[in-house]
């Protein structure tokens, strides 16, 4: 992930399972301001692909489930986690 100038960060959001086909390459690129939270990211995602994602989204940051208030860093690994269905 790279910081753009001093006031925006670019995040790549990885998509899996039923979300894969939402975007080419199963990834969405977002520009967020510093201090943006997971809740901000979810709002941005809904604006970017309206109607394609469910209202409630589970987000993993650095391979761990993240809370809505978690602040994002430019180096974070971000992914959306659809309802899991292993086994």
């Amino acid at each position, binding site marked *: 992930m790279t910081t753009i100038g001093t006031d925006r960060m670019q995040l790549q959001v*990885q998509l899996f399972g039923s979300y894969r086909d939402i975007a080419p390459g199963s990834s969405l690129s977002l520009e967020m301001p510093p201090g943006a939270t997971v*809740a901000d990211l979810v709002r941005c995602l809904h604006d970017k692909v309206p109607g394609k994602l469910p209202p409630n989204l589970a987000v*993993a940051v650095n391979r761990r489930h993240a809370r809505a208030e978690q602040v994002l860093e430019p180096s974070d690994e971000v992914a959306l986690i659809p309802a899991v269905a292993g086994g």
Partner: protein
Amino acid sequence: MNTQVGLSDAPISAADLRVGAGPAVGAVLTFEGRVRNHNEGRQVVRLHYDAYRQMAEEVLRDIERRTREAYEVSSVSLVHRVGTLSVGEVAVVVSVAAAHRSAAFDGARFAIETVKAELPVWKQEEYEDGSRRWLGGNPAATGSSE
């Protein structure tokens, strides 16, 4: 004890992944989860498993550790397939060794139920007519939302 924990692109089996047993082990229990030919009234011909690989590998190691810590289980193997599987193929193997059978049953049950609840793996059913459908699965317990 030889144990394995992780995802596999290649076929897996209980025979290959059964945990080793030393002289203190009185029970070895090995579970295979297999692709069956029906679900919710429809004929299934194969399953396509997708995974968030890096996270799934970490979650599997975490489940292996939690199983050993919560039960009197001396060793655990835990391997999940990814990719396309035909009916009858093995999707997941859990194998545990313990001094006593109750710990082996309880530990194996905990491990497979936790895999189903937490592992970031998704399956898409393919039917006889070629159509496909992602299965809903379990909502992430601690996920965030707006």
